[in-house]
């Protein structure tokens, strides 16, 4: 019974992107050529601690044709299209190599976000020079989180 519950909760976390709703930060986001973006909501309290970065683990890639992959992250302010702040983009090399990627949160955004409880972030496949064929690509990302942990620079 416990095992079944665990399996069900695991499946519930693996949600397909581009759905009208937003995923919680603990969810795994799956991007494909036909569902090329998704939104997650993240706890913004961490911004109160100061400098922050968005940590995006790419945990699984199915890319048999090794198509170039780039992914962008954008903060959606108040769920309005006009209020969008880009956090930047990153690429995958080789095009099936998983890993954890980091995008800095601009100071201005961090200041603005300090008072908010939740932040909505849109993750999107960046279009390449050639259109992606349907079913040619699957990327799982998450759990995505904001971290204020200072990365060690120099003693």
């Amino acid at each position, binding site marked *: 019974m416990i095992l079944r519950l665990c399996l069900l909760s695991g499946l519930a976390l693996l949600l397909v992107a581009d759905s009208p709703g937003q995923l919680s930060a603990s969810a795994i986001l799956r991007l494909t050529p036909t569902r090329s973006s998704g939104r997650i909501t993240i706890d913004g309290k961490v911004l109160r601690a100061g400098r922050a970065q968005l940590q995006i683990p790419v945990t699984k890639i199915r890319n048999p044709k090794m198509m170039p992959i780039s992914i962008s992250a954008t903060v959606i302010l108040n769920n309005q299209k006009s209020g969008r702040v880009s956090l930047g983009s990153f*690429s995958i*090399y080789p095009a099936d190599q998983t890993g954890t990627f980091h995008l800095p949160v601009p100071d201005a955004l961090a200041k603005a976000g300090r008072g908010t409880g939740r932040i909505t972030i849109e993750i999107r496949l960046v279009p390449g020079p050639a259109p992606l064929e349907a079913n040619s690509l699957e990327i799982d990302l998450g759990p995505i989180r904001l971290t204020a942990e200072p990365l060690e620079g120099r003693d």
Partner: protein
Amino acid sequence: MSKIAELLRRDFNKGLLVAATSAFFGGCEKILDDIANRPIRRNITSAEAADDIATYKNAVTAMKALPATDPRHWNNQANIHQNSCPHGNWFFLPWHRIYLSFFEQICRELTSKPKFALPYWNWGLSPSIPAPFWPSGTPLYNPRGATATSMADASLTGPAVLQSILAETNFQMFASLQSTAPRGGTGGGYGRLEQTPHNYVHGFVGGEMGTYQSPRDPVFWSHHNMIELCWVDWNIYRGNQNTNDTSWMNWEFSEFFDAKGNPTKMTTAVSLLLPLLSYRYDADVAGTPKQALQKAEHERISKLVRQGAPSKLEFENRFEIARDARAVVGKPEAFAIKVDSSALGSMLEPSGSKRLLLSVDGVTGPASPDFFVRVFLGNQPPTDLNINNPAYAGSFAFFGDAHGGHGENHKLQFLVDVSEAARRMQQQGALLKNGALNVFLVPVAFPGQDLKVREFSLGRLVLSNIK
């Protein structure tokens, strides 16, 4: 192999970074000249890069023509990357710096062009793969996904993105995250330089560039040369600090081959000296010409020489020669010390492995560094002050502007490796006089300089032998 590269291999790999660095700058004017005139890595789209592009084509052709068993063969060089390249952690930058440096030395060796420097592709300013890599059938061509007119996405490689990445002050966010090993370690994660322009360009070019066999495409080396320029700009021109974590600094990479095809090693700490000693760039990432950056570069070298870098020196004996010494410009100043020859041990034998260092501590930086100091050994004062004199051991000079941010009264330390001169003079029976070893310091004016200083303080002189 160049004299600089030879010294890097011979001395720095023993962990004697301070001694080697100081002896490097203080020990040989020829090397100092080599450093000042080290090869310039140029933008591949500039007219000045034409000779280097021609040499690069010849080098690629020569590497492909080597026997398949030669580690310098084109495919074997790519296999080093396939088997050992670190990605997604903080060994990414130093590993590729060393990889490029040895590749560049192989190119010089195979083309007999000792001043060759690998040209770089600045995709921030030139978003299409440059013309020398086309067309099919030419030495720098490789089958690719991109065409000659494909344009890299400015949102991943453009000037605004690069300036934002270069403005990052956190080493790990810039250069990728801490890991316990280059491959298979714990920790890690991508930093901004690697995950954005670096990764993107590999995928944008496509073909083998999109795989770990990417060095089979000649554009790989010019792409990574641009990544290297980004690090040089961030660290040296802008003065951002790398981590000083010893697990990063002391990591020794051993998968490389030198210009002759011999296995070789280098630590991260030594790799930090490469852009200061063995190559430089014609411009920064934004395309600002090199000349405008020389002051920053000199300050960086000066700081490195004065402060040294993490190192380990194992002294066996120390002999204080003089305290509160002074010297007059143009006049040999003699300092003598009775030395127990047994204490020097095998150092003075022709094949001796030990080294004898002269340490000059507490030197007051002169207000006007228009002279340098030559060091001679022997049983009588040198009459010939030329560096061809067998008694000549080395020299030291004062870098940068007079004050260099340290102030006129800042105390400096210099090390001069006097081992070779001591052996030469010993063989001639001209080293010791009545059991005493004589050291002569001669302040010499730079050619054409109008001397402002006539006398200056040398501080304390100590002779040490090290393992």
